[in-house]
């Protein structure tokens, strides 16, 4: 199979998955969800008011029409209006993307650089003390709740020691920096453990392959084996892992943004959950799913460019 027909096939497979995701979202929000009339109109609503509201929200229409409406939003991103702020949701997303990215992009770069470097280092010294120590530390750091990191970090470093801003945000390039440093440090600490462990196991999978033994038998140096042979082959899983993180950069950090009052998408989502703002939660769910699907396709296509064997599967 050549590359183009593979890409086409992969794109066609997106359709049933996207329809499935929309169906799941439709089941959760349109079928199982309680009637929003009580939520929006309060307990003293008249029957006419409820009927008008149902018509406005489109939930008096038959289920198949409601389902099609969900599918439509997955393509048009026309999510309608927020119930609590009455703003257009797409505008909220556009406004929130910047602050979210100002945290997640540096975080993404720093975490992955640190994790991959450390993973390479410890797999070079595999089985030695440093390897075991790093593994144990990363497991230990993974075992603490992310909420505990945020609570403790904000209390201790920002409130007690006053090293960082406790909360708040200012838009514009140099202005936002003091506000995002602490969340970034905390999330590097949170995600460093699982990332390092993953990269280490991926690299170790390659270290025991036959081609490494062959290279060693030829007299290739250990450093050159690590970078020229092992890292190149380990690139496939590493690439997948890195690329699939990209759509979530826009969505921001669910917990940290709320705690540090950063007006990003993570904070918007938390606020929507607290105020029972169905359309916003629905929009965020659709947005993240669509992002995940698109980047899934990109990874698969990159896979086949890197490793032509994949196309046969």
């Amino acid at each position, binding site marked *: 199979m050549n590359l183009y027909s593979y890409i086409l096939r992969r794109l066609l497979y997106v359709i*049933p*998955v996207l329809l*499935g*995701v929309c*169906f*799941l*979202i439709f089941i*959760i*929000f349109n079928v*199982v*969800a*309680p009637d929003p009339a009580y939520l929006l109109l309060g307990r003293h609503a008249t029957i006419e008011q409820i009927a008008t509201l149902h018509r406005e929200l489109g939930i008096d229409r038959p289920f198949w029409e409601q389902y099609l409406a969900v599918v439509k939003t997955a393509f048009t991103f026309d999510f309608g209006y927020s119930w609590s702020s009455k703003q257009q949701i797409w505008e909220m997303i556009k406004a929130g993307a910047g602050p979210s990215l100002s945290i997640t992009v540096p975080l993404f770069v720093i975490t992955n650089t640190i994790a991959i470097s450390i993973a390479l280092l410890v797999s070079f010294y595999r089985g030695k003390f440093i390897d075991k120590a790093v593994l144990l530390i990363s*497991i*230990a750091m*993974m*075992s*603490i*709740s*992310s*909420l*505990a990191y945020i*609570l*403790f970090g*904000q*209390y201790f470093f920002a*409130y007690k020691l006053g090293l960082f801003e406790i909360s708040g945000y200012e838009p514009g390039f140099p202005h936002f920096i003091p506000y995002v440093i602490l969340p970034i440090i905390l999330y590097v600490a949170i995600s460093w453990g699982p990332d390092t462990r993953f990269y280490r196991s991926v690299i170790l999978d390659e270290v*025991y392959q036959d081609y490494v033994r062959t290279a060693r038998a030829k007299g290739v140096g250990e450093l050159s084996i690590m970078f020229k042979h092992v890292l190149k082959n380990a690139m496939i899983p590493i690439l997948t892992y890195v690329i699939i993180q990209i759509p*979530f950069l826009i*969505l921001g950090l*669910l*917990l940290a943004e709320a*705690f540090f009052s950063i007006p990003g998408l993570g904070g918007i*989502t*938390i606020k929507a*959950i*607290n105020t*029972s703002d169905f359309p916003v*939660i*629905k929009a*965020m*769910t659709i947005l*993240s*799913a669509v992002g*995940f*699907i698109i980047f*899934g396709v990109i990874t698969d296509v990159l896979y086949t460019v890197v490793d032509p064997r994949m196309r046969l599967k």
Partner: protein
Amino acid sequence: MTTATETMNLTVPKKQKASKSLWQHAFSTIVKDKLACTALIVVAIYFFIALMTFLGIIANDWGATVGPSYAEPSADYIFGTDIFGRSVFLKMIKGAETAVAIGLVTSAISLVIGTTLGALAGYFGGLIDELVVWFYTTFSSIPFIMLLVAIAFIMGKGTSTVFISLGVTSWVGLCRIVRGEVMKHKDREYSQAASALGAGHLRKIFKHILPNISHVLIINFSLTFESAIKAEVILSYLGLGVQGRPSWGTMIDDSKLELARGVWWQLGAATLAMFIIVLAFNILGDALRDALDPKLKGK
């Protein structure tokens, strides 16, 4: 004639020492590993504490006021008291019951869904396989945390919400692995032998193939268990957590308002309790994988 047969019988070599089975090998590996042994003991202690509180033998009076509001940790109050003057230590102990319950129920739900779907897809292949693969691809396309939040949010507050929302969101990984393993095993000799003896599909799946891939289920169990305990904290923070009894998640969540007053002991106690069991499960999961994964055998 008879003596000849007897001498022949005598020359038959003595019964050889049986080679170790997968489980024997795994057991001996884990017993040798001190860290894994400690982790196993820690997990056992937590389960024991949870059972004791469940039976009402210890920490039954966690709701009782034992001292002033927000008393600092001291000899009288090991981990201090909370806003209502309740002992944080007893709440932490009682929280173990909640955590173990969440871990067990979540793992059980994900085990049932994941194993059933995975086994059916792997065994029958064809259209069923396509359907199951489509289903879990769809499920995993919505990020875990968003799906969890959406389901929990729609179901409303309550303990059953925590169980169900965590259970139905954590079966995909297991399903994928079981499908792959069943595919590998369904044409093995023992499986063909079972068919030759007249075993039906279900008997083959449940009596023959699943016991042979049970190590996958056990490794996955420890993974689901600890991630459920961690996810409960996030649900608690969103106000969708366990109601009416203490959990580590609600304790951590409560402390967000207490920290500004310098009340750190609730956060500390819950984080510590959670840290120890999650760490133990992580170490145990790694040890089990090393011990049970045939690919790593002898490395």
